[in-house]
């Protein structure tokens, strides 16, 4: 007598039936309009294909019809969590192209705003990761409480909380208002206490460890070959941080360390982000201590009728999500002939399938959460 309750068609067995699940784009864990076609054997992932493009507006084409400066506000919308680092990467590419120098004070302002961006991005990412894991709300709200303080600083500096549009070729748009640096100092001084609190609550949490350790492992070789950058790469144990390698801006003046992981799993990525926030606090302390008086923008740079000489440039910085690069070709006209964004979120997704194979469907959510993607940058 058969023991199966369900009558199977002749010749079929329970093991060879795969279930295809379309996760997203309206799935709450996909961090935006991102879709994955997943083939499941029971609960185990045997195939996964990422599908995107729902937010595609051809940012690069728009920028080719726009003046160099006109693209600056558009870069805010790429990775809308980190508009200031996007601004910096673009400004850096144009400055390399046109040979513009940046005054001291502007360099310090850039470092301060970029590191504040990194703080709020990493804090929120950990919050989102916990949310994906089922810790509904609480860790995320702790992170958002801190983020709010940083967004207030951005608002008083640039006028906008998220779409800051702050950097200009050869400097920054405005000088900080009176008292802004002291206010920033307060936020930075208080930040490690939040990190301690966060770590006490989470780092040795049994559920967190059980769900993240040994999940989504990326080997060192694969990470390098697949062009993974940012905290993901460093969690796999590769010491490659553009702040140390390229030393763009004035990063050679600060003493800070690059935290590295040795397992390359989700827990390592979580830990790397926490440690990076501590290092960012160190950089901020030094930058706030050393920031000089002076002009905040290079007065010689033309704002109107800005036409760089024909040529090309590739500028890249260490954005919170990885290497963000801008590749520009100028033909001497007021708008770029070619404008290319090297999106770290998109390229970090290359090995999503390799990370997920063999894991449960519930782990896919966590692995995706640990990559840290923003669809505005993936789709452009």
């Amino acid at each position, binding site marked *: 007598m058969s023991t199966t309750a369900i009558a199977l068609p002749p010749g079929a067995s329970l093991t060879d039936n795969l279930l295809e699940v379309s996760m997203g784009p309206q799935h709450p864990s996909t961090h935006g309009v991102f879709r994955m076609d997943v083939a499941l054997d029971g609960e185990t992932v045997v195939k996964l294909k990422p599908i995107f493009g729902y937010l595609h507006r*051809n940012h690069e084409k728009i920028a080719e019809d726009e003046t160099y400066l006109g693209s600056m506000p558009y870069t805010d919308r790429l990775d809308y969590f980190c508009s200031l680092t996007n601004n910096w990467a673009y400004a850096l590419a144009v400055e390399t192209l046109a040979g513009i120098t940046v005054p001291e004070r502007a360099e310090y302002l850039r470092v301060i705003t970029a590191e504040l961006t990194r703080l709020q991005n990493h804090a929120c990412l950990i919050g989102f990761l916990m949310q994906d894991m089922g810790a509904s709300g609480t860790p995320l709200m702790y992170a958002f409480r801190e983020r709010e303080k940083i967004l207030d600083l951005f608002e008083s500096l640039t006028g906008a909380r998220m779409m800051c549009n702050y950097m200009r070729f050869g400097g920054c748009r405005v000088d900080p208002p009176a008292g802004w640096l002291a206010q920033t100092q307060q936020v930075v001084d208080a930040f490690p206490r939040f990190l301690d609190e966060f770590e006490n609550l989470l780092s040795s949490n049994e559920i967190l460890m059980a769900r993240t350790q040994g999940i989504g492992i990326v080997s060192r070789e694969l990470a390098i070959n*697949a062009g993974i950058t940012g905290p993901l790469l460093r969690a796999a144990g590769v010491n490659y941080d553009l702040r140390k390698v390229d030393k763009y801006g004035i990063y050679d003046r600060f003493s800070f360390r690059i935290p590295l992981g040795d397992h390359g799993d989700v827990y390592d990525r979580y830990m790397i982000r926490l440690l990076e926030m501590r290092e960012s606090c160190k950089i901020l302390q030094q930058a706030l201590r050393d920031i000089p008086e002076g002009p905040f923008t290079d007065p010689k740079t033309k704002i109107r009728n800005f036409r760089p000489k024909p040529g090309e440039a*590739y500028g890249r910085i260490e954005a919170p999500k990885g290497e963000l690069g801008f590749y520009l070709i100028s033909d001497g006209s007021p708008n770029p002939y070619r404008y290319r964004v090297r999106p770290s979120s*998109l390229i970090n997704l290359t090995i999503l399938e390799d990370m997920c194979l063999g894991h449960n469907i519930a782990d896919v959510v966590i692995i995706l959460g640990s990559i840290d993607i923003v669809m505005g940058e993936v*789709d452009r």
Partner: protein
Amino acid sequence: MSPEHAFAVATFLRDQRGFDYCSNVTGVDWPVKEVSQKVKVKKLVDGVETEVEEVQKSLTGGYLEVVYHLYSMEQKTGPVILRMRTQDRAEGVHLPSLTPIWRSADFQEREIFDLYGVIFDGHPDLRRILMWDEFTDHPMRRDYVEPDDYEYEPTAHDEVLRKTEAHYANKFGDSAV
């Protein structure tokens, strides 16, 4: 870099020169463009040799270019920039894929295929990535023209409309529609 040797050159760079990290892959469109250049030429004018300025016209472009930015994570050096050009912009748009060497080129080559129409031979999974599968043109080309019915996407709408019209015509006669 000529496309025939691209794969060998790239393998050499990765294995012998340590360029293990391919950061950025992108396409550039260079349509045919007329360039005029002023050249001074010696000419016999009325039997006397004089220098005359002459405008020489030449055609450039007419190909798609793919650019690779390579870095070395071990030696912390770079970038080395590789460029490949297609024969033309219509039929001869085949280039060898470097995805088997650097996996980071995977999505980026798919994007170039999608937006520029370069066909990468040897790519494991060459499909459209940002535009939908039914889309036919390549929007990043310089001569791309937006379709008039930009918002149009194939739906069952027209079919439903025809059925409705037929239904009303049957029921109430032609005057009802």
